[in-house]
C-alpha cells in the first residue's frame, strides 16, 4: 500500500471517528475501523449496528444470547 493510499485511509478513518464522536456513538477508533472494514466488505450496516448494540448494551449477560438452534 503506497503512502498516498495509507494517508487517505487514515484521514478517512479520522473523519469518520470525528463524526462518530459528534453523533455520540461511543465506539472507539479501533472498533470503528473494524466496522468500516466490514462495511466495505459489503455487510449490511443495519446488521452491524444490531451487533454493536446487542453486544454492548448488555456485555455481561450471556443469557441474553439465545441458544443456538
Amino acid at each position, binding site marked *: *500500500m*503506497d503512502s*498516498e*493510499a*495509507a*494517508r*487517505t*485511509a487514515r*484521514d*478517512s478513518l479520522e*473523519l*469518520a471517528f*470525528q*463524526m*462518530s464522536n*459528534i*453523533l*455520540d*456513538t*461511543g*465506539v*472507539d477508533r*479501533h*472498533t470503528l475501523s*473494524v*466496522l*468500516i*472494514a*466490514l*462495511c*466495505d*466488505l*459489503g*455487510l*449490511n*450496516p*443495519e*446488521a*452491524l*449496528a*444490531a*451487533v*454493536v*448494540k*446487542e*453486544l*454492548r*448494551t*448488555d*456485555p*455481561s*449477560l*450471556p443469557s*441474553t*444470547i*439465545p441458544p*443456538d438452534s
Partner: protein
Amino acid sequence: MEDQKVLDLVKELVNRLISQPQNPNPNPNQPISVNPNSSSVDLNHSHQALRYAIRILSSRMTPSIAVDEAAMAESIKRQLVTQGKSSEALTFADLYSKFSSKTGPGSINNKWAVLYLLRVVSEDRKISRKQPNSTVSRGLPAIFDSQLSDNSRVSRDKERGWSGGVLVVSKDPENIRDIAFRDFANLLKEENEVSEEVLVRDVLYASQGIDGAYVKFDENIDGYALSDSIKVPRATRIMIQKLCELGWLFRKVKGYISESMDRFPAEDVGTVGQAFCAALQDELTEYYKLLAVLEAQAMNPIPLVSESASSGNYLSLRRISVWFAEPMVKMRLMAVLVDVCKVLRGGAMAGSIHMHAQHGDPLVHDFMKRLLRRVCSPLFEMVRSWVLEGELEDIFAEFFVVGQPVKAESLWREGYRLHPGMLPSFISSSLAQRILRTGKSINFLRVCCEDRGWADAATEAAAAAGTTTGRGGLGYGETDALELLVAEAAKRIDKHLLEVIYNRYKFKDHCLAIKRYLLLGQGDFVQYLMDIVGPELSEPANTISTFKLAGLLETAIRSSNAQYDDSDILDRLRVKMMPHNTGDRGWDVFSLEYDARVPLDTVFTESVMSRYLRIFNFLWKLRRVEHALISTWKTMKPNCITSRSFIKLQQAAKVKLLSTLRKCQVLWDEMNHFVSNLQYYIMFEVLEVSWSNFSNEMEASKDLDDLLAAHEKYLHSIVEKSLLGERSQSLYETLFVLFDLILRFRSLADRLYEGIYEVQARSTDDKKKPSRQLSGKSAEPGSWATEGRKALTQHASKFLSTMSQELDDIGKKYSSLLTGFISELPVQQHIDLKFLLFRLDFTEFYSQSRPNI
C-alpha cells in the same frame, strides 16, 4: 477467503465490544449487573457472543431505505439540528464534506454504509439510554421506531419480556400496558410485510410513471396498484391506490406530449398544439421539482418540539396525500384537457381550453390562465399580424379567418371568411367580424386598390392602442387590449379604405352616373336616345347591329347634356344586347350597361348589375310607353284640319266619327293619366327617395361593409318599390299587360287617324270631283276615283265601326286590368303604395265606380 476475512474481522469486533471496559451509561435499575471477575464465564461468553453476532449478520436483513449518501448525511444533520445541537451539525456537515471528497485508493468505498451505521448506532445508544426510565416518562410508547430493524426490535422485546418478568408482577404493573402495546406493534409488523418507507418510495416512483418494487402498473385495472401478494392492511392499500391516481394521470399527460412531439414533423400538430404541449411540459417540470423535494425529504425525521419523542420519517403515506392534493387537482385538469384536445386543433383547441377555464376555484383559474396564455400566444400573434399587416400566417389552418384564392372582384365578398369551428369562445363573434374585416380591408387595399397608405394607418393604430407592431404584444386575458387594438386598427384602416374609394375611385360619381344613365335620370339624354334608336329597335332583334346602336348611343350623348360629363364615366357606358329569341323585337333586347372595373366591381358585382339591368328594362319600357303615348297625342291632337273634315260627312257618319274619336280621346286620357302618374311615382317616390337615403347612408358609413349594405339597401328599395320584387310578381305582370295594351292602343290610334286622314283627303278631292267614290282603305287607291260619295260614306262608317269596336275592346280590357291593378295596390304589405294609389285615384273616380276598392 473473503469469508475468512469477514470472520476474522467479526471476531475482532466482538472481542473489542465485549472487552470494552466501560459501560457508557451505568444502569442502576438493571438488576443483574456486570460480572467482571469470572474469566471462564468471560471466555464462554465471548464464544457465545461471537456466534450470536454471526447469526445476526447472516440474517437476511436488508436496509429498509434507499441507498443515498447525500440524503443520509442531510438527514443526520437535520437530526442534530432538531436536537438543538446546531454547532455540532455544522461541524458534522464540514466533516462530511471532507469525508465524501476522499476518493481513490485507500479511501472508504461504502461511505453510505458507514454513515448509516454511525447513525443507527448513535440512535440505538440514545434509546438504550432512555429506555430504563421510559415506562415512567413516556405516555404512549411509539408503536414504530421506524429506523430500527424488525429483527433487532424483536430480539430486544424478547429480551425485555424475559428479563422484566419479575418486574411485571412486583414492581411495575404499568408495564402490562407497555407490553400490550409492543405486542400490538408486533402484530402490525407481521401484518405489514413492507414497511411504510418502502411504500412511500414506491408511491413517489409511481407518481412519475415508474414501476416501483411493490407498486406496479396493472393493465387490467388500468392504474397503479399494490400487487395482491403483498400483505398490507386494506386502508393502506386503498390509500396507495388513491395516491397512484396521480401516476395514472401523469402517464396520460406525458403520453400525449410525447405523442404530439413525435408526430410533429410528419403531421401538422399546429402552433397552438405545440404551445399547448410546451405549457404542459412546463407544468410537469414544476411537478418534477416538487417530487424531487419530496424525495429528498423522504428520509428526514419529522421535526418536533419535544426532544424526547422519537419521530418517524418525514414522509408517510398520509403526508404524501396532503402534499399531492394540489398537484392532483392540476394533473386532473391537464388530463381532462388532454382528453378534450386530442382531436382538436388551432382556435378550436384554445376555445375548448377556455371553456374549462371558467372555474370558480382561484387555483384552477390561475392555472388555466397561465396555460391559456401560452396556448393562445400563437393565435394572438396571428390576429395581430392579420389586423396590422393583413398577413395570414396560418400554415396549419388554425386561425379563424380562412383565405381563398379568388379573383380580384370577389376578394371582398368571398376572399376571406370566418371559420366558426376555429373561433375560440373568448373572442366574440362581433369582434371576430371586425378582425376579419380589418385584415380584409388591408388586403383589399393592397390587391384591388394598389394602395400603400394603409401601412401608415396600421402603424398609427398600433401606436394608439399602445402595443408595438412587433411580436408578442398581446396575450390571453387581455381581451380589452385586443379589442382596443382591433378597434383602433379597424377605425383607421376603414377610414383610409373609404377615402381611397371615394377620392381616388370616385365611388359617388359612378353611383350618380349609374343613376343618370342606367336609371334614366338624365331626361334629355333618354329622350334623344329614344328618338334615335326607336326606329332601329322596331326591327327584329336578330337584324340589329350592336355597333350601330353604340354609334347611336354616342350620338345621343353628344347631342344631350351628357356630353359635359367626365369622359371616364362616359367611356364606361355601353350598349348591351341581351340574348334574344326568335320574334323578339329590338325593344326587348336593348339595354345599357355600365362597366364598373376594379375595385368598384366589388360593389357593382355581376348580380348587382343584373338587377340594375332589370330596373333599366322596366324603366325603359315605361319610357317607351310614355313616348308612344306622347307621339300618339301628336297625331290625335284636335286641330282645325280634322275638325273641318267632319263637316263634309253625312250626319250619321259624322256622329259615328265623333263618338269614335271621343272614345279614343277618353281612352288616351285614361292611359296617359296612368302612365304619367306611374312615371312620377317611379321617379320621385322611388328613385329620388332611395337615392337621398343612400347618399345619407354613404356619408355615415364607416367601412366598406356599411357602404355595401347601404348600396344593397338602395338597390333593394328600388327593386321592391318599382314592383320588380318577388312578392309583387302579379302586379308586375298586370303592369306589363297594361303596357302592351297601351302599345296596341297606340297602333290602333295610328291606324284610326290614318284612316281619318284618308277619308278627309278623299272628301277634299270630292269637292272637285263629286262623282268620285270613296272606296275605303288605302289598299286600293286606284278604285277610289271610281266610287261615289255614298260608297265613301259607307266605307268610312264601316271602318269607323270596326275601329270603335276595337277601341271598345281595348278599353274594356284596359279598364278591367287597371281596376284590378288598382285594387291590388292597397293590399301590398311589403311596400308602401299609398302615394301611387292616391295619385292614380286622385278624383276617387275608380273607387266610386268600383265601391269594393
